[in-house]
């Protein structure tokens, strides 16, 4: 177990370092001279050179990279070139929105996906399975931003069931906060729910074929009991894996969901930064998402090895 953890941790560190290099080099590829941009159009060449010196742009790439990493580790992401605000403050203001949205979406997806998966297994070959399969297929084939637009059109505007846009901080007013996030969370969770449903169903079908299930049934345990006790526990492993694998999709989905429902989250910060060429913000956003993604994947893997002891030994292959 310890061996596995150390290997996995080491791999994550290597990935983190490589990813930070990619971001660092990527930022250097961005068009435009940051010193020139900071100095303004009427600055003298001497002034530009002074800023260049001040920003450390004349130093070697290695020194610049080490400085970059040092600043990031201290949480110093610089200032937004557009608003002049500290990037750290911008992140602190927008990140909670996205985290709440994503967490809510994951909960919705797991509950709906696992339930549909159980239903599909329990009623194999009958209409409930057919319905669950159809729902999953639709969930995979319908782009969630289109679904979001339709949901606003029909659920929010026409019937007024949910607010079409707007955000209330959950810490301020939990009821209104969750109410405003419900529709976005459902929309963001659909494709995840579809994948979870498919995998839960497949893993349940597999589990129900195993010898230990046959033994349990022979012992006199009811089918329902076996399903919950063995099928569900095994499908838990699948669900954890899926969440890890689908995380990238979830992040992308969150950005577009925020756009549709006008939520002031991390996605909006990212898009605004790209369209206004606000490089310090782009750099911070890309790096934070990447680091967060690597760390969550690490957490998923560790969780995975806790639930499934067979994975622990030997690492990957």
């Amino acid at each position, binding site marked *: 177990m310890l061996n596995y953890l150390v290997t996995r941790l080491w791999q994550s560190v290597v990935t983190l370092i*490589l990813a930070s290099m990619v971001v660092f080099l990527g930022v250097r590829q961005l068009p435009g001279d940051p010193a020139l941009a900071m100095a303004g159009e009427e600055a003298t060449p001497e002034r530009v050179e002074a800023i260049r010196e001040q920003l450390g742009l004349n130093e070697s790439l290695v020194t610049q990279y080490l400085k970059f990493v040092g600043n990031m580790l201290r949480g110093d992401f610089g200032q937004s070139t557009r608003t002049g605000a500290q990037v750290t403050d911008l992140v602190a203001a927008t990140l909670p929105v996205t985290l709440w949205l994503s967490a809510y979406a994951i909960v919705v997806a797991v509950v709906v996906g696992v339930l549909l998966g159980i239903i599909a297994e329990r009623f194999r070959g009958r209409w409930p399975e057919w319905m669950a399969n159809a729902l999953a297929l639709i969930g995979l084939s319908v782009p969630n931003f289109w679904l979001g637009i339709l949901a606003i059109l029909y659920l929010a505007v026409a019937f007024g069931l949910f607010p079409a846009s707007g955000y209330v901080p959950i810490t301020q007013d939990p009821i209104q906060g969750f109410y405003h996030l419900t529709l976005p969370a459902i929309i963001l969770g659909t494709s995840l729910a579809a994948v979870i449903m498919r995998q839960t169903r497949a893993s349940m079908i597999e589990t129900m074929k195993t010898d230990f299930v046959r033994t349990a049934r022979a012992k006199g345990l009811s089918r329902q009991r076996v399903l919950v006790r063995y099928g569900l526990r095994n499908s838990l492993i699948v669900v954890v894996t899926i969440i890890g694998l689908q995380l990238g999709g979830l992040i992308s989905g969150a950005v577009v969901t925020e756009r549709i429902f006008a939520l002031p989250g991390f996605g909006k910060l990212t898009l605004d930064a790209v369209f206004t060429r606000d490089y310090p913000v782009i750099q911070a956003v890309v790096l934070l998402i990447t680091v967060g993604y690597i760390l969550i994947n690490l957490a998923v893997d560790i969780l995975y090895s806790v639930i499934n002891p067979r994975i622990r030994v030997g690492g990957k292959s």
Partner: protein
Amino acid sequence: MTVVETRNPGLGSARGRIWRSLLKSPLGLTGGIMLAIVVALGLLAPLIAPYGPAEVHFDAPFQQPGTVGYILGTDDLGRDIFSRMLFGIRVSLQVGILSVLLAVVVGTPLGLLAGYWRGLDGVISRLTDVTLAFPFLIIAVGLSAISGPSLTNAAIALGIAQIPTMIRVVRGETLRIKETDFVLGAKTMDASGLRIIFSHVLPNAVSAIIVQATVIMPVAVIGEALLSFLGLGIQPPTPSLGIMLSDAQQYISRAPTAAIFPGLAIVLICLGFNLFGDALRDALDPTNSSRK
């Protein structure tokens, strides 16, 4: 010579079995028909479309579907939604095919190498991890920040994001095929590693690669629409289903159909690939054939 004979035992009949199995599956057949329609619409767009995709008719904005001359109605600038949709499908398929090609061309050799030589496995796995660390939207954000949003950049971002899964699929197949008797046989006959990879492993991994391609395609199509919707993909005046949706969202209560049709087109493409891909996977997997 014996090696060549054992490589494809009765390939012709296997191919026949796959086709029969595909045709027998009603869902797979439906998916295939959907795909045929979509591909035909995309290919023939310049011939079928009554108007150019960017042709504006200021005298006829917000026409209802069914209006004479505008089957699916028009948008805020009086552009024919049907024509724009056809060209949008064409662009979607282009981006999809480009990113699938990228994933296959880069992912297959890397997967083969990683699966065959353990020494390379570690290096390639680290590379995969780094790529996986960037969600596709972030790659797209980076690319459009560096060289501006475009069709090619969208396809590259989507393709890069799919390379790791392709590597994993091919690597897994290689590990499996490497242990088969015919590869062991070839090894005893002193065949070189590269020769084994190209004449034994690759041909047997093709079906897995094709199945993975059908999985990537709908992901790429949705991805393109998403990027274009956000303004990070295709740029106007090139029509894209994503741009149509993003435009339509602005006047959604006035002309809801302008948002409904492009979305349906995306669903049709993705459903087609998903249904067809599922059936193909079942057909190609011998352990599944007894299921029905």
